[in-house]
């Protein structure tokens, strides 16, 4: 087994000296496409051994073995020759590989991955050093491949602090918790329509893996995940991640899940399980709303995704979705209608509130996990507030959130009772009628008592302000409309 320790550090040290790499996000992008090609190459050699005549979709000169691997003569391409090859041959070729809708997924993913990829490095010698480190990985070996999967995860985790790329990464403690509580079963199909780096897909697989007993099981296990990711960079990371998890055919598509009319979805488009952390505050063109019924058309992408989920969850299906506080307390018209539909047609049985620093440093916004299924309308909803564990003031790079921090929630899950701490609700149930009529769909219950004022990042603050303002404006408009109705209509 080659030396995996210090893998990330070695790459970082080499790339630090290249003028083309500006910051963590670019460094990770650079590593990403190289790793993808290396992992794909390992997979291809497996497929070649499978017996049938395997034709690589990549032309011979561009395959990893031809230009990246250490040549036996020790004369592997380096320096300007290498740079020239990468920029003027490799990338243009891979970006324009002949693929179409009928191409098998394993061929299509190469072009999809490289469509927007970039080579940032400007020093051919340093690039050769980086390639050598990556080539040194022996991914044929099961142990090493598995160990590397962990390292890959740690590379992905760095995205959280790499500026805006943090939106592609959900901490694994959270995805593991959700995958566990959703209780996967062999034979089920799960989906994530904004899968980012594939955290929910891999957490689901980790949980489901425990149930695989036969080859038939293994086949169903391999076919159980489905993902859509709009942005090229996380798409590449996700595909690589799944290939590392031994999925031959990662069913992840480089598309925008919001661009299909929700009313067009049929049973075939529906899934038994949906796990998601939809992006919020996302930028979409205004006409994306045209794909939704008018009453559900929101400007907030998280709201639109929730609608997509409602239209794509199979009968008796289960879902767990991360949504920000703004969704819980927001009462603008679209949100009200979405919540009305959610409580009216789905069973929102649990809302877990998470503390503010779960996604830090990417954002300090407080988020929540909504668990619901399609077994009928909501009868009652349980709210549970997960408090910071002992000894933690907040999560950080050095003190990240771990699955074990969810233990109190997991214990409470099967033995639910109302709890209160220092006079503040921690766990409480509300009937659907209370939520609809008394609380008017304000789902911001069992929240965090504000001991220390949370300072939000400027953009988060602006977003919160806009949400509150539109909720309040909507409320004012509603009241005025009702008053007008009384004044005009009911003159008695």
């Amino acid at each position, binding site marked *: 087994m080659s030396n995996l320790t210090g893998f990330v550090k070695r790459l970082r040290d080499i790339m630090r000296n290249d003028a083309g790499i500006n910051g963590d996000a670019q460094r990770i992008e650079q590593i990403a496409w190289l790793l993808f090609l290396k992992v794909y190459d390992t997979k291809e050699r497996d497929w070649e051994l499978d017996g049938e005549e395997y034709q690589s979709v990549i032309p011979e000169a561009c395959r990893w073995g031809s230009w990246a691997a250490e040549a036996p003569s020790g004369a592997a391409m380096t320096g300007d020759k290498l740079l020239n090859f990468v920029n003027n041959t490799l990338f243009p070729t891979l970006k324009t590989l002949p693929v179409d809708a009928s191409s098998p997924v394993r061929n299509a993913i190469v072009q999809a991955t490289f469509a927007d990829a970039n080579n940032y490095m400007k020093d051919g010698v340093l690039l050769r050093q980086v390639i050598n480190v990556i080539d040194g990985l022996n991914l044929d070996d099961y142990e090493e491949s598995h160990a590397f999967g962990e390292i890959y995860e740690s590379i992905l985790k760095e995205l959280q602090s790499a500026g805006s790329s943090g939106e592609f990464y959900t901490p694994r403690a959270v995805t593991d918790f959700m995958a566990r509580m959703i209780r996967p079963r062999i034979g089920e199909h799960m989906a994530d329509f904004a899968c980012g780096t594939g955290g929910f897909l891999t957490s689901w697989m980790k949980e489901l893996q425990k149930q695989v007993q036969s080859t038939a099981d293994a086949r169903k296990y391999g076919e159980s995940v489905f993902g859509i990711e709009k942005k090229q960079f996380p798409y590449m990371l996700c595909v690589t991640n799944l290939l590392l998890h031994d999925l031959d055919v990662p069913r992840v598509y480089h598309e925008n899940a919001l661009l299909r009319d929700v009313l067009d979805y049929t049973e075939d488009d529906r899934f038994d399980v949906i796990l998601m952390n939809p992006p919020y505050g996302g930028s979409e063109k205004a006409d994306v709303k045209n794909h939704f019924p008018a009453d559900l058309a929101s400007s907030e992408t998280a709201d639109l995704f929730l609608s997509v989920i409602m239209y794509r969850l199979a009968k008796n299906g289960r879902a767990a979705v991360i949504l920000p506080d703004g969704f819980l307390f927001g009462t603008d018209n679209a949100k009200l209608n979405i919540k009305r539909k959610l409580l009216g047609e789905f069973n929102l049985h649990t809302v877990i509130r998470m503390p503010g620093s779960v996604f830090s440093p990417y954002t300090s916004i407080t988020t929540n996990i909504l668990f619901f299924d399609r077994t009928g309308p909501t009868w009652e909803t349980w709210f549970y507030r997960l408090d910071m564990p002992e000894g933690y*003031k907040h999560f950080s790079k*050095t003190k990240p959130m771990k699955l074990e921090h969810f233990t109190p929630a997991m214990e409470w899950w099967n033995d639910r009772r109302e709890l209160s701490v220092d006079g503040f609700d921690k766990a409480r149930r509300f009937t659907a009628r209370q939520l609809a009529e008394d609380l008017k769909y304000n789902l911001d219950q069992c929240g965090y008592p504000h001991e220390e004022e949370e300072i939000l990042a*400027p953009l988060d*603050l602006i977003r919160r*302000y806009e949400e509150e303002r539109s909720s309040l404006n909507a409320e004012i408009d509603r*009241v005025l409309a009702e008053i007008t109705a*009384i004044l005009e209509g*009911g003159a*008695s």
Partner: protein
Amino acid sequence: MTPQALKHSILQLALQGRLVEQRPEEGTAKALYRQIREEKRRLIREGKLKKEKPLPEITEEETPFEIPEGWIWARFGEMSQLLDGKKMQGASHPYLDAKYLRGKSDAAFVTSGKFVSTGTRVILVDGENSGEVFYVPKDGYMGSTFKVLYNSSSMFEPYVLYFLFYHRRDYRNNKKGSAIPHLNKSLFFNMPVPIPPLAEQQRICAKIEELLPYIGRYEQAWNRMEDFHQKFPADMRKSLLQWAIQGKLTEQRPEEGTAEELYRQIQEEKQRLIQERKLKKERPLPEVTEEEKPFEIPESWIWCRLGTVLHKLTDGTHATPKYTARGVPFLSVKDMSSGKLNYSNCKYISEQDHQELSARCNPEYGDLLLTKIGTTGIPVIVDTNQPFSLFVSVALLKFNQDLILNKYLQILINSPLVQVQAAKNTRGVGNKNWVMRDIANTVIVLPPLAEQKRIVSKLEELLPLCGQLK
């Protein structure tokens, strides 16, 4: 539209006869008017009402709006009067003053006064809120600033009360008298009242009741909006400051060096100055622990304690000097609580005293002052060459301004990172105190010098915009 304006416009619709439809079968107000006058004559005969001068006819100009056919205008004094309540003594009852009737105080019991029974309406005739009507919740003795409001039983009382509420501001704004203002009785009794038939009065009131909960909701949403608008600019400012000192406002540029190097430079210079006896040797401060670091900072920055990057940290004189009418300004917290030095109300001391005090505490151009007693944590840059001395309530921070920007330190101290520490460490009774040792121990972040400059200029662009948010 404020909730008050909303309520007012609904009441206006009511009084104009546009809230509910008119129904001919309910009759006209003419008959009602005759009833009102007959009842008044009868009660005067029975001695229950005072006889008064008749009120003048209402002219066209006096009517503020059109009213429906079946309605009639009359003056308020024709249907209502202010009475005294029965003088009684013996039984113990609560004294009904305004505070008690507002529910803001407990009952004080007395045994004599002007008795009024439960359900009576009383009206304030003296004081700020003259014209305001109250409901008597239990038998009691009426406060001296009140009178009993008598309304003709031919009128539907709630309608009359809404009328009075509608004109509340008119009564308030036109009080008579200067020492103790009181209700302008002439305005009060002459006010034209639009009178609908009795049944319609009842329907109008029912409609208003129907709308009250909606007005309540409107008021709630409105108040929350106001609250929000109020807090937002300050919250935005805090957010930007914190963002800046977390290193997120500016990009880090490796060519600018690291804060580690900067810190070393500062320490080396301090050592040298100590050797040259230009600086006093200080007690070393403890390292910043992990728990004390509330957020991540860029790799090129460092955490450290405020005291370690200063050349001198001292406070103004502990003894109150002799003040003079003119001389050298002697400043304390009140002269800089806006964030800038303000000499308009300051004290002065003699030139000689100032020289003595300067030996220990000598503020100079570019230094930073920091309030430490009372309102603590306000950083102020010394932007003048004029000499002045300080009181113990203000600390003086001296540092190498070529290595640390005073504007950066000011931003740093104004940020939540330091403000939270200041608040936590400001202790005591009465005028609270942020002691020198805690100030020195304050945990801060330090970026490379060039980045300090970039942070300062970015914020100079952004912070004024916050001011515009109000």
